[in-house]
């Protein structure tokens, strides 16, 4: 019962979680996405706090399942996931690593100005909005006027 030394460190757990991909945008991890709000030991139980991106995002249940599967795979049997809705998720919580990976993947990262800075394919700044919504709740649909390619823009909220 008192073998606390066998508990993986909090840093170790963050590292494991940083290897769990977002189910809809697999180039970034759940840690990059900023949805994991806390990791702590409550006695023998590991408590992971998760916040949804959008309240109706269908990936939320898959995210919880993926966290559970990954941590159980690392031998953590006693695990509790906690949904935390406040403070509300913001794209400010996307990591710099995550932003760079999004862009390399062809998704323009969120900008405070409310639209993409440039086309993630050719870098042109001549871009126009096609629709305020895109393939997932967190994205909008844009198009480049130079290379003519459509692309997703990660909405800034």
């Amino acid at each position: 019962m008192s073998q606390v030394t066998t508990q993986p460190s909090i840093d170790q757990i963050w590292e494991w979680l940083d290897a769990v991909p977002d189910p809809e945008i697999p180039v970034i991890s759940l840690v990059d996405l900023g949805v994991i709000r806390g990791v702590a030991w409550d006695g023998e139980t590991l408590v992971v706090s998760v916040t949804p991106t959008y309240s109706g995002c269908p990936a939320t249940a898959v995210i919880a399942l993926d966290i559970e599967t990954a941590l159980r795979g690392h031998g953590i049997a006693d695990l509790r996931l906690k949904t935390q809705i406040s403070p509300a998720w913001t794209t400010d919580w996307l990591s710099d690593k995550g932003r760079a990976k999004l862009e390399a993947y062809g998704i323009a990262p969120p900008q405070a100005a409310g639209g993409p800075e440039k086309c993630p394919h050719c870098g042109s700044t001549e871009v126009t909005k096609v629709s305020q919504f895109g393939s997932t709740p967190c994205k909008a649909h844009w198009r480049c006027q130079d290379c003519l390619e459509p692309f997703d823009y990660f909405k800034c909220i």
Partner: protein
Amino acid sequence: MTADINKDEAFTQFLLRMGDNTLILGHRVSEWCGHAPVLEEDIALANTALDMIGQTQMWLGLAAEVQGDGKSADDLAFLRDAWDFRNVLLCEVPNGDFGRTLMRKFLFDAWHSIQLGRLMKSSDERVAAIAEKASKEVAYHLERSADTVVGLGDGTEESHRRMQESLNYLWPYVGEMFQSDAVDAEMAAAGIAPDPASLREEYDALVSRVLSDATLTIPESRFAHKGGRTGAMHTEHLGHLLTQMQWLQRAYPGAKW
């Protein structure tokens, strides 16, 4: 109605009103999935419906918690009948055409955004947290529905005519959102939610500005259909909606995804 209502009962009623609004309107908007005039609109409608269903889970989840009899948000959504629903009538009337769907969405979004702004300062921290989360989504919904109302209102002769007809049809359903009863008095006294009437001035300013940009005329009459948020009398349309929304749980009780 007498003011003889205890705080938990009033709180439950308030939460049902919030959750049923988003549930029923979310269902209405989702009826467009696969039918919208262009792909982008189809995706947008489905996305906004999804946000509303997500918000419903939070409101009805809290309603079930406050009610404290072991029910879940799903039980409340799928196992109540028409007379137990507390959504305003505006949310349950049929979609009509695309223009009327967006006009209704705009008239609701405008109220919703103001209401959530006030609820973020609620004395109940669970209500404040849900409002904070939902308000980010609703700000985006309002931007889109207002833009579309302006685009279609100030559009072609045909789109203008349809939007004016939509406004004429829907305007008598607006007043119900600002009516107050004993539930609201109890919520206002507890600092949980604002008196609905106190939102009207801000609402009128916002709606007038957008509808004026849309070159549309707000009907003079202040007549208001009511009965949805108190449950006194819903329209015939709600029952039809529920037969579709609830049939699976009714036909296969306890079925799980």
